[in-house]
């Protein structure tokens, strides 16, 4: 019964075809509907439809995400709930002290990265979490892709699941967005491949054994069966750039912040899914 929605749709389609998975609907815990296909946002004129990476995964992997008891990423959300309520640092404050329950943060994940007026910069969720830790809690910042940070990002995502990604693309972020777009189309490394070569021109195609998705980040952080842990957006970016035989950028670098903003904007309209499950 748990997987009713998923199985029902799968049952109608041909059992073996890739299409069977692609027509499936993602409904989490039987009632939380996830938008895995949406019309492309207006600023993205090279695509007509945007799709979540979930669409391209095998049925088995898809099903893991349809129930929180099966989703291995949810264990880390629980770890982050504990961290959320734990005071740390010289100010003896926890996240809870300022923000209340994690559920109060619903609506935050969909709009990040976003412009921070006081700092005069585009901030990712990880940057904002560390700013709270340093200036409000007077605690040590977490490593950009550390376990603590990715867990906290998973908690922030989980309380916004189902809400549409909606990052701002105009006003003060325009310059950063343009930089991100340029990076997206740059053919890096000895293989001279851009993000667009794989994720815009060839999504839904196989490259050797990998079924290419649109490389959307609405599902982050993602639990990967391959490395059995939660993975941060910038870790995935590093992996993809490395695979072009290029020198990567580092996690948290201005380049990856810009790229994250641009890639996030390509997913405006897809649901927040994190922590999602991928292979």
């Amino acid at each position, binding site marked *: 019964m748990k997987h009713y929605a998923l199985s029902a749709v799968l049952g109608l389609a041909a059992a073996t075809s890739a299409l069977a998975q692609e027509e499936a609907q993602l409904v989490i815990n039987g009632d939380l509907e996830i938008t895995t296909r949406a019309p492309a946002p207006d600023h993205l004129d090279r695509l007509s439809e945007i799709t979540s990476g979930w669409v391209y995964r095998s049925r088995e992997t898809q099903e893991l995400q349809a129930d929180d008891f099966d989703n291995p990423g949810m264990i880390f959300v629980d770890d982050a709930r504990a961290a959320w309520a734990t005071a740390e640092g010289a100010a003896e404050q926890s996240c809870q002290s300022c923000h209340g329950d994690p559920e109060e943060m619903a609506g935050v994940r969909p709009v990040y990265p976003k412009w921070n007026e006081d700092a005069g910069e585009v901030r990712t969720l990880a940057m904002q979490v560390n700013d709270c830790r340093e200036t409000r809690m007077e605690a040590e910042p977490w490593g950009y892709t550390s376990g603590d940070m990715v867990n906290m990002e998973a908690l922030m995502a989980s309380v916004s699941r189902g809400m549409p990604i909606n990052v701002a693309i105009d006003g003060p972020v325009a310059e950063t967005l343009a930089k991100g777009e340029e990076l997206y189309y*740059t*053919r*890096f*490394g*000895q*293989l*001279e*491949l851009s993000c667009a*070569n794989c994720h815009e*021109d*060839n999504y839904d*195609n*196989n*490259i*050797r*054994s990998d079924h290419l998705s649109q490389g959307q980040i609405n599902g982050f952080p993602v639990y990967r069966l391959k490395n059995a842990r939660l993975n941060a957006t910038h870790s995935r970016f*590093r992996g993809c*750039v*490395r*695979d*072009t*035989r*290029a*020198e*990567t950028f580092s996690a948290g670098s201005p380049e990856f912040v810009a790229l994250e903003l641009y890639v996030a904007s390509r997913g405006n309209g897809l649901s927040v899914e994190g922590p999602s499950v991928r292979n």
Partner: protein
Amino acid sequence: MKHSVKIAAVGVVFAGTAVLADPVAPTEVAYGDYGEVETSLTGTPGDPAAGEIIMVDRGKGNCIACHQVTALEQYPFHGEVGPTLDGVADRWTESDLRGLVANAKMVFPDTMMPAFYKSEGYIRPGDGYTGSAAEEPLEPILEAQEVEDVVAYLMTLNEAN
């Protein structure tokens, strides 16, 4: 004639016969107007059996990452990014195929296909798949003789096969 001029230009020392001369360097490959490369990069005929292994080796050509090849069906996972290579020897000459493998961008300027015999002119070149920086010139992805082996293999992909 072309051949000896080129060899002289790169200052190769002859070791008895032209066959043993150093391979044409990646920066010295002479591409024709349509991206073809007429002259063998090494002077040594390619070995199609060696070429077959390079075609499927993930650390070498990994050509089937992007191309379907019926004759290589025993090797799993053929990609869908490029066209099938079935019958490719009927569509292209040996010179064309040498150019396509060495640097397909000389034939199709915006192609996704990587250049396998090119050593410089990259954006943020890396040290293999480590993610660290590397200084140009890089080792080309395939050695000159490996390019010849792949070309020899491709020449077996005609309609009869």
